[in-house]
């Protein structure tokens, strides 16, 4: 028996079903996307090879670039606004002495709700006539705001909802890292007269840097493939101003029957995500890691 388990063929045989399924449902569609991305295909008739025409069209398509810009907004919002809030909340929860589990659960709940539920929930909050937000703002004399139907507020409304959904998930990740820091380190700092601010900025944040980088990486990858929240809340509207690359891809492929062009956009999403996450990893890999 021991001899059998040392035979690599045995392992290959055990892995074979999974590898076959992976190739069938992951490898094949990716290869097909690359193939159809270079064709003019309406989804019904045989595809016609058209070289890089789809990519040329994408690069000159202002609507596509608007969707790319919206993906960038997603990234910037995650990194510049959401991440500091996540770290701040994590630090707060790590300091509380009572009901820590309650706070952890409370912030985590939005991330276990389905996006459809969150979309509808926030749809009610943003409702112009009877929505919670406008009613609250009306107390201060603010005029009615058409959150999801005005192009100047629709994108930020989606970004806030998306941040609300995922903040709790990242808080739990960072909190785990904070709670993993040896207590004696922080106690020593306290004895040396460090304030809470000093402890947070000089000790805790540098020590949890690796997990912060992971959170940033996950945020970037999540932002690049954002789709469901936009689809549920605005379907890319008003008039395409909240389209992200993925919703634009769906519209082109399934609404306009330009499956070739849709596949080309899918390839571009893949390449852009690869480049951005690659650049991010490269820019963060050389930094010194603090061991404790």
């Amino acid at each position, binding site marked *: 028996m021991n001899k059998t388990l040392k035979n690599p063929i045995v392992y290959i045989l055990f892995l074979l079903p999974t590898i076959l399924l992976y190739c069938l449902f992951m490898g094949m569609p990716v290869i097909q996307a690359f193939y159809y991305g270079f064709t003019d295909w309406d989804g019904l008739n045989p595809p016609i090879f058209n070289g890089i025409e789809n990519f040329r069209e994408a690069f000159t398509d202002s609507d596509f670039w608007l969707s790319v810009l919206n993906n960038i907004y997603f990234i910037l919002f995650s990194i510049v606004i959401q991440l500091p809030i996540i770290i701040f909340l994590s630090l707060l929860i790590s300091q509380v002495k009572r009901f820590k589990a309650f706070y952890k659960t409370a912030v985590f709940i939005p991330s276990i709700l389905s996006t459809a539920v969150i979309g509808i929930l926030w749809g009610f909050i943003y409702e112009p006539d009877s929505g919670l937000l406008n009613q609250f703002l009306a107390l201060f004399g603010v005029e009615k705001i058409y959150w999801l139907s005005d192009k100047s507020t629709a994108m930020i409304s989606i970004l806030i909802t998306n941040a609300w959904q995922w903040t709790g998930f990242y808080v739990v990740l960072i909190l785990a890292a904070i709670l993993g820091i040896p207590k004696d380190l922080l106690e020593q700092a306290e004895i040396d007269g460090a304030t809470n601010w000093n402890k947070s900025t000089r000790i805790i944040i540098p020590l949890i840097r690796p997990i912060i980088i992971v959170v940033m990486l996950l945020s970037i990858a999540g932002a690049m493939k954002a789709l469901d929240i936009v689809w549920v809340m605005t379907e890319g509207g008003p*008039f395409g101003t909240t389209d992200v690359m993925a919703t634009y891809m769906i519209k082109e492929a399934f*609404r306009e029957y330009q499956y070739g062009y849709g596949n080309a956009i899918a390839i571009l999403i893949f390449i852009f995500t690869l480049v951005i996450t690659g650049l991010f990893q490269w820019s963060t890999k050389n930094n010194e890691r603090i061991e404790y």
Partner: protein
Amino acid sequence: MKKILLILMMVTFVSSIVLAGCSSSSESGTGETSTDGVKDKAIDESAKVEEDNQETITLTLRHTQIGEGKQSRLVLLEDAVADAESKLEHVTYELEAVDHEVNRFDKLPAEMAAGNQPDIFDLFGGADTIRYAKADRLLSLNSILEELGLIDQFIELNEFTVDGEVYGLPIGGFTEGYFYSKPIFEELGVKPPSTWDELEDIALKSKESGYVPFAMAAQGAWVPMMTMNTLVGHSAGPDSIQGLLNGTHKWTDPEMVSAFELLQDFVKKDYFKRGSLGLDYGEQRNQLIAGEAVMMFDGSWTSSVFTDPEQAGDMIGDIGYFGMPGVPNGVGDQTAVNAGFSNGYGFSSTIADDDKKLEAVKQFIKSMYNEEMQKRGLIEDNVLPSMKVADLSGVDPLMSEIIEVMNSAGGAFPAIDGVIQAEVNTILGEGIQRILGDDVDPLEMLEKVQQVQEKANQES
């Protein structure tokens, strides 16, 4: 020896998993099944087949009768299916309900691409039918209609006809116009308008009295496109829409531009509910029922909502209907209406080689498309008949108003989204939404639409 045996056992195990994964879900030609429940049913039915020495067949039937507003239509479909099943002993129709937009724009196109469309499905005439017919996905119905003696019974089959072959059967007809609140009209001291100035006057009075003149929910571009459709038909003439395909008319023609300027004028005058771009279609009728809006441009199918006490509430009997008045400097007959027979059922071309399924399709057509069902559709669901119905008695008063407007119309023009190509439809819809958002100059927008139209015309 032991080692070889072990490896052999593992190979058998792995192969059985792979083969099980690759096996087809439908067995012994009992029909395509998609869920465990359906499979169980198929297995049960197979047992019966063995007993009776006859084969049971199952046809998948995709419909879009979801939600309160379509309840009456669902009852009619279920009755037709029950009738068909009672006539054919070994046939089952598996009903599958899918949202109208999901079916039309996502699910059916994907199934058509893969060639695994349902046996019977909700289908739109015009561009959709042409697309699927040219890819050989639809069953030609000419010989069936001939055999059943139905070929002359339909009022019009143009939207489902491609190169002389009929590929779908409309379940009913439609027309579009203004529904209005009779109590508010009375309060304002106005009557249904017969000229554009009168319509404007009512809109102005409504606004001054604190009402929204025109209900609107434009998250889906097709909703404001209904208003735009009739504005185009009146301003540029009933032939203009078809003319966009053969190049006799352009989106940038002055008459076409002025139609869009009329919509823009309404926006600038604040005649639509603000924030309408974030509202779903159902919200539009709610604005009228709740007494917030005075008028609403919509299709005749909506009238069933206003005759249902659960949906219309106190507004039962208080909703009227009039056609859009002629526009200033309009081309052609200004009483023409947007009307057609564009929604119905299509059938999969894969049925052609299966005699038993073909028989089941014929029975479905017999049970669904007859004078009794058409009359019931008119009375119970307020849908205009697509077939010739001799007796029109017992029709709801609102429906009578709609039929009256239709009968007095000097012509008809088709729905834009049923005629123009998908890519033109998308950019046009977005352009109309931009006008509603006061975000674009109509001419500038139409120039872009025309560019896409010309490209699409060349390609097709």
